[in-house]
């Protein structure tokens, strides 16, 4: 997946929820949005990028939100044959 797109999408989501006064809820909402709308390969690539070397390009609010909710965002292994 195009990591630049994923970073930009995550930042956009964060910039929306950041307006809410309850920071913890805003972070949870940011992570929830990614969980509910991103295909697992997008989430996996996104998390892989964060673990990699170099600048990740994420807004601090989004990075904190993702780190706080990382377990929810980590895709489960797919099972079963097509």
């Amino acid at each position, binding site marked *: 997946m195009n990591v630049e797109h994923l970073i930009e999408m995550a930042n956009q989501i964060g910039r929306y929820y950041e307006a809410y006064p309850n920071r913890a809820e805003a972070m949870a909402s940011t992570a929830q949005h990614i969980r*509910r709308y991103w*295909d697992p390969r997008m989430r996996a690539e996104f998390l892989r990028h964060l673990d990699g070397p170099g600048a990740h390009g994420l807004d601090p609010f989004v990075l904190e939100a993702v780190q706080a909710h990382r377990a929810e965002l980590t895709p489960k292994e797919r099972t079963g044959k097509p």
Partner: protein
Amino acid sequence: MTAISDIDYGTPARISERTVTLTIDGMPVSVPEGTSLLRAAAEIGLPIPKLCATDSLEAFGSCRLCLVEIEGRKGFPASCTTPAENGMKVRTQTPKLADLRRGVMELYISDHPLDCLTCSANGDCELQDMAGAVGLREVRYGFEGQNHLKSPKDTSNPYFTFDPSKCIVCSRCVRACEEVQGTYALTIDGRGFDSVVSPGQLQPFMESECVSCGACVQACPTATLMDNSVIENGTPDRSVITTCAYCGVGCAFEAEVKGAQVVRMTPYKNGHANHGHSCVKGRFAWGYTTHKDRITKPMIRKKITDPWREVSWDEAFGYAASEFKRIQQQYGRGSVGAISSSRCTNEETYLMQKLVRAAFGNNNIDTCARVCHSPTGFGLKSTMGESAGTQDFDSVRESDVIMVIGANPTDGHPVFASYMKRRLREGAKLIIVDPRRIDLVRSPHVEAQYHLKLMPGTNVALINALAHVVVTEGLTDDEFALARCEVDSYDQWKEFVGRPEHSPEATEEITGVPAADVRAAARMYATGGNGAIYYGLGVTEHSQGSTMVAGIANLAMATGNLGREGVGVNPLRGQNNVQGSCDMGSFPHEFTAYRHVLDDVVRGQFEAAYGVTLDPEPGLRIPNMFDAALDGSFKGLYLEGEDIAQSDPNTQHVTAALTAMECIVVQDLFLNETAKFAHVFFPGSSFLEKNGTFTNAERRVSPVRKVMEPMGGMEDWEITCALSNALGYPMNYTHPSEIMDEIARLTPTFTGISYEKIDRMGSIQWPCNDKAPEGTPVMHRDTFVRGKGKFLLTKYVPTEEKVNRKYPLILTTGRILSQYNVGAQTRRTANVDWHDEDMLEIHPHDAEERGINDGDWVGIVSRAGETTQRARVTERVQPGVVYTTFHHPESGANVITTENSDWATNCPEYKVTAVQVMPVFHSSEWQARHKRFTEQQLALLDAREREST
């Protein structure tokens, strides 16, 4: 001429709580107060002769044919203009009346060509009928004197002919243009015997303001205004009621047929969405259904550089299924997916998502609403609890203030625009929020009180400013908001929008809209009575599309403009079945009725119904599919009715993704832009060739009924079933009604819907269930669907697509009346007479700075790509903004647009692209490549190996 099967009651029906009772020719009749005698008589089967009266128009009283006698009254009043009263005793047939009527008819016929046997209206002519009805046996006046028999025909319009020699000057056409359409293109020129119907200033129709809606043709009682298709083929002999395949108004039509050939599409007078009205597309632009470009045989090829090979349906299904299976074996379960279209029926889109979820075993299903109204679903669901507009179209009849945001109804939703204009003529106020001067800003008898001409991309700043005024000036309806909405969210929102940075004065620099206008418009909306908001893609197709939809909902909730007639939040859906395709579970994260795939209970219901385990993870959305294709994890795609290579942004990105895939299956009428990259082609069926339902912008589920046999031999739903069967997942429906029954079983808002009920009621607005067995015209009456309404915060975040010295102008895109979406249908009709190329609108100031004259070729360059179009220099657009349409593939409008998208839904930001525009003398590199590729692909189509039969 009205449809052959219609009864014409002469004057419109009246609605009144009071009833009057009278006798007509000795027969008692009770009618609502205000009903004309003409209509009262017709309702009990006593047709009074008439010519200038028709039930789509208010009475005019000019032809003097519908005269009656009323006991106790002098003279012979016209029954069309005389209201029925209690106790009246009316006679419609007396010797004196017969004498008068014959005299009138004799005068009409004395100036009418006696060519009935060769006339196109022979057998379907009201003048002919009336001559018979009044017993006209001779005409004492010859043609020696002055007459109109040599008046030349006007054949300028491609769809109808105006033959003034047959005109009886009843003014029905003129009144239809005024009352029904609201364009005022026709008038009666001259006086007395010289009176003639005049388009514009005695101009040919095509040079007048006529928008070719067909209302005049339908209203004409003679062959004066006649469909060319009837002139060429003769009158129809049967009709089938069906639903238009163009915009989200979803007009009901009578497809009038002669043998197996459609000869006329007449708007159905009992159609609940359109009430007998139409536009140039639905009324006339149906010739594409039998166009020579139709592909009617299945085709396959290994590589897109190979010639196509016509094959049997079985071989095509077998090949497509084997390729999808191979790809999944090789690249994984999630490596294939599908995209359906808002041009598909509900049943087809439902089957597409079922195939993906049950046969592919993933959730990689998306629909073209992704790129238009997906933010509507998110914004309205989050605030009010349902992903749909709140009103029916008729609601606008009770609106006092109409706010149109980012929509161009006269072009995009013309029939609804006619209702809106009628209400505006009655005195409703109008606020337009649009960067461009759309026709509604000022047109005959309509003028917006405020045109908030904002800069593209600043919607949220503007809606916050409107909300700021409402909150800080105490114009909220607190009683409504506190009772109906979450109080915490309401308080939080009020504090948010009440901040100084949201004031009109503070946001003026961002939006470009004078603060005083914003304040005045906000006051008008909040305090002017019933306030209704109608919006379009100018709201949704932005990086903050979902935020703006929520902002609109916030404003409506705060002012109490929800839950009754005349108010509401109303998305004007672009294509015919945008609402339906969304409802049917076509998004990768949702089953039908917008229930998330993460919901174990809902997923369990579908697993039980489908008999397989379903993927609990959301799938790829359309833009994600392109990225996944380019990274090698997405290799197979099945598309029905959707042309992503033309309609989606950043064309070069889309075509690169298509090229990277190994199996693309296209199901369509034509070899569209996407099909040029395809490996399998399934010939689809047009809306005239299949059964199903469409759901329009007011949640109205309407019937689509087969009028002729599918040219490829299979209806689209049958094709999807057969592909699923070939993939090993059985689908054995025998009729789309069975699919609808399954949808109803699985979808809480559809439990009361069936084909039997649709046929009985004509159409049904969902939710339709035990709580609302007859459907729901207006939603959220007592409570919101989610219980309490929720105010969302709407922080303005400027788009990343910024102007600079290199790209100093903002391009915004839209569409026009005569063309539809990517133009695959309308470009194959005479509608190209109105619009045969996309042009770039540019303000005179910007044009002069660049040395651009009207009609010059200009290059349009963005960060995504470059194309060329001819310039139209116009003050419709403001300085700094340019505008174009995307109806013609070679114009490359989406070569320029970028992949920026809405934060919540990935809906592309079509409405904001930073560009530079300069004069050029040759086409762009992309256009040259596109031309070569198109020529190559058409050659491969021409060279296709024909199936031996």
